[in-house]
């Protein structure tokens, strides 16, 4: 297989590529496993770059344009590397009613970012979510994997400022 050709520089001597191959083998290289494999690839590499998409497409026998189409259809997949820290702002209805829009714009102003963007130094990515299902605690934000409820603009800014100061 064109493993080396497809991922010449991006796969250093780590076993991420092996894990990706193993995942594809587990799905018997079926084309319908594309989304599952993209999940795996993103978990391993943090994002999906073109070489990776090309490689997965070739292994699963899915045309490149379809791979790209699937990778850009779903919100979860990202083709750009994320920042070191991620702040997810929930924009579900319950959170919206309790004012997450204000928190979001405060974060955008403070860090000169738009939703989906990353600070130039690669420290912080600002992401929005369509309901995290923790509506009882609205407004909800996620600071790197940790869910925080009843957040205010001040507490949110305190967290992100802290990251920016000690990257």
């Amino acid at each position: 297989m064109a493993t080396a050709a497809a991922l010449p520089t991006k796969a250093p001597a780590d076993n991420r590529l092996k894990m990706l191959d193993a995942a594809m083998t587990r799905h018997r290289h079926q084309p319908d496993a594309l989304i599952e494999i993209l999940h795996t690839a993103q978990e391993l590499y943090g994002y999906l770059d073109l070489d990776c998409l090309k490689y997965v497409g070739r292994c699963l026998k899915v045309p490149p344009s379809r791979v790209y189409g699937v990778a850009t259809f779903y919100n979860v997949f990202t083709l750009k590397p994320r920042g070191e820290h991620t702040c997810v702002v929930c924009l579900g209805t319950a959170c919206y009613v309790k004012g997450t829009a204000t928190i979001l714009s405060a974060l955008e102003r403070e860090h000169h970012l738009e939703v989906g963007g990353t600070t130039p130094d690669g420290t912080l990515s600002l992401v929005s979510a369509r309901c995290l299902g923790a509506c009882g605690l609205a407004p909800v934000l996620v600071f790197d994997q940790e869910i925080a409820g009843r957040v205010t603009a001040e507490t949110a800014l305190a967290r992100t400022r802290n990251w920016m100061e000690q990257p």
Partner: protein
Amino acid sequence: MSVTTLTMNGTLVSAAEGATLLAVAREHHIPIPTLCHFEGLSEVGACRLCLVEVEGSNRLQAACMTKAVEGMTVTTNSETLRSYRRQIVELLLAERNHVCAVCVANHTCELQNLAVSMGVHHVRYEPQAPQLSMDASHPRWILDHNRCVLCTRCVRVCDEIEGAHTWDLMGRGRHTLVISDLHEPWGQSESCTSCGKCVRVCPTGALFEKGTSATNKDPHFVTYLKMAREQKLWNR
């Protein structure tokens, strides 16, 4: 082959079993506007222009995908349907940058012709004026996203007839774009065979030949190709 009888706009018409309402209408010269439909390609039911009223159902049905059923009563041109179709054409005209005056497809464009036939003289919706690119990297043809209506005829002809699957859609909703390979310049596509079928099925000026003002369209060439292939006309 058994024959089905149904009523279309008050007239009894006959249809081959399994025929779509659109095929029946065309056979009997009853006009139904279409955009995503192309003779010989699979149906997607996406443009919603061919919606018709079927008695007994409160849902409008896409004529291109609804099979004729014995005893069906179909209306293809009520005032409501005409109003919906006008609105859909207006929505398309407002969606991207359709500037007929400077388009290679002026007067041969299916979208423009639909607008004329429906009496759409202006668009009531806010023009979205998105900033979209053109891809002129291919030696022979150009893709202009400004004029694309996302009918996916190019995607289907490339997949179903040519078998290359160079084209597909990326993104979603209003950000949907037709792309080649991994959103790479068309001229560098590894999968494209430069057969040009996509250009020939494009209803607007989104795909066109360099150096021409209008591309020659043949609405039947795909059917012809398919027939030739299925009946092995060339290797008898």
